[in-house]
């Protein structure tokens, strides 16, 4: 069974005038059909206002579809009786860590979710411990959250979601406010959860480098999914991405520029290692050719 299944999902934001009458609607998500298997790492790209966050908010029933359906682990999000189960299955982490931390001590903050779910005290502590260990923040369990760096706070936010034992975590631009180290920490934690614990991850981001390890990349524009594929497939389309106000990882861009300057490199190079390997192979070929020519003369 798919963990997330949307079918022709559309969502309209309704604008009201001062008297509360409907002035008009804006379609933020439009006819999105999508299925995510358990344990997948999905990245969602798209420019500001392309509908990424609106889509994400459907996955834990913060928003309900105007048209179409969303099923989370087999539960229809529109059914009120499922609300808490849906939210427990799909957790969310937002952009600003300061808006998501409420506890005075790290471990209390992480325990807040399971406590609200009525988990027995002993088990709460077990969950807090394992969640903090999973994101590498166990050593900071007695700290006050306001003594932590942005990346650390964001990892505590993830642990807080993790303690509710979700099958799926949606991360909505979790690194937008972090410094390079903080970004690395958070992405590393998300990948570890995915690979080790098998948690399904949906990552929304504007940093192209963060998605190269994803199983599937979705690109959104005007509320629709306009591109879908492996990172290599998606990032091979440099010009199309640019038209969508997006970018490609710096390595991919460099390879693309070299290609344009006449070097025969393949499309969609994603890492520095790949580029080095390709250039080394190319150079060896050139040297062989040069030797051959020399031998002919």
């Amino acid at each position, binding site marked *: 069974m798919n963990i997330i299944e949307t079918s022709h999902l559309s969502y309209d934001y309704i604008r009201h005038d001062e008297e509360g009458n409907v002035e008009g609607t804006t379609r933020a998500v439009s006819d999105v059909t999508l299925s995510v298997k358990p344990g997948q790492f999905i990245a969602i790209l798209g420019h500001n*206002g392309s509908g990424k966050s609106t889509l994400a908010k459907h996955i834990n029933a913060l928003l309900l579809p105007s048209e179409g359906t969303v099923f989370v682990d087999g539960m229809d999000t529109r059914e009120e009786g499922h609300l808490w189960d849906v939210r427990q299955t799909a957790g969310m982490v937002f952009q600003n860590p300061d808006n998501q931390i409420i506890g005075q001590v790290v471990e209390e903050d992480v325990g807040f979710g399971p406590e609200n779910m009525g988990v027995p005290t002993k088990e709460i502590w077990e969950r807090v411990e394992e969640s903090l260990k999973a994101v590498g923040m166990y050593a900071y369990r007695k700290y006050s959250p306001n003594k932590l760096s942005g990346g650390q706070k964001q990892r505590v936010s993830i642990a807080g979601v993790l303690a509710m034992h979700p099958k799926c975590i949606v991360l909505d631009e979790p690194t937008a406010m972090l410094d390079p180290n903080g970004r690395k920490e958070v992405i590393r934690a998300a990948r570890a959860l995915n690979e080790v614990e098998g948690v399904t991850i949906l990552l929304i981001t504007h940093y192209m480098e963060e998605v190269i390890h994803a199983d599937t990349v979705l690109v959104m524009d005007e509320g629709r999914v306009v591109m879908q594929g492996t990172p290599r497939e998606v990032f091979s389309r440099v010009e199309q991405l640019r038209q969508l106000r997006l970018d490609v990882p710096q390595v991919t861009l*460099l390879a693309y520029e070299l290609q344009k300057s006449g070097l025969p490199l393949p499309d969609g190079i994603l890492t520095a290692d790949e580029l080095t390997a390709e250039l080394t192979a190319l150079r060896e070929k050139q040297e062989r050719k040069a030797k051959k020519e020399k031998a002919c003369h």
Partner: protein
Amino acid sequence: MSLKLEHVSYLYGTDTTLPVRALDDICLEIPDGQFIGLIGHTGSGKSTLVQHLNGLLEPSEGILSYNGRNIWEKDFPRKELRSKVGLVFQYPEHQLFEVDVFSDVCFGPKNLGLSKEETERRARRALELVGFPEEFYGQSPFELSGGQKRRVAIAGVLAMEPKILVLDEPTAGLDPRGRDEILGQIAHLKKETGISVVLVSHSMEDVANYVERIVVMSHGKILFDDVPRNVFGHVKELEAVGLAAPQVTYILHKLKESGFDVDTQATTIPEARDEILKAMKVEKTC
């Protein structure tokens, strides 16, 4: 015309038992017409430094002078300084409040006590400088896209006609195109007006692509103050303080290790491309 910090230190919580030294012996000069990048990990003291630049915070030790005059002298016109040094905070669009774009940009100069004509002239010019289309001047700022809102907020500060513009992460949360547009516009207005720009950023790529000088902060001190090529040559030191070099620099290091003859000091994509093309050229032997 310049802003100069001499041995500036700043302590938070001096009335407690655990004062924190957020700035530690900072010496820095911001001359006219320079594009400066200010980088540092979270908590390195960047924001504290920035708040000193227009007199929002008073140094605990040391002197901050503008055009040779200590700004904390008794009769120094600090209100005027605040119009000379414009600060654009993170997520400046949260500070928009007026009913339409044009009134919002007019708010600053109007408060300086300028005439209506002068206020409007400045607002028009500021909006022009950030590339905001005139047909939307009458629109509510809250109905604009994220990138457009940010332009309006920056215009609001520009309308004060500052000599130094300080931007704290002006591109956070913007999509790649929005980021390029805002930075391009800032570079353009810097060229156009000859003002100095201080760009606080977490993106090493942005800093490498736009600025001519980088100031690196760590634990309240200045670690490096140099041109980008030289600063990003210190990859190990930057990583040790939670920063990084631009990604192309890492690629060039990798290539160098694999025996390519490339200059690892290139920091932008075009520079790296040219280096690689040069290294890939096979010597014509006959």
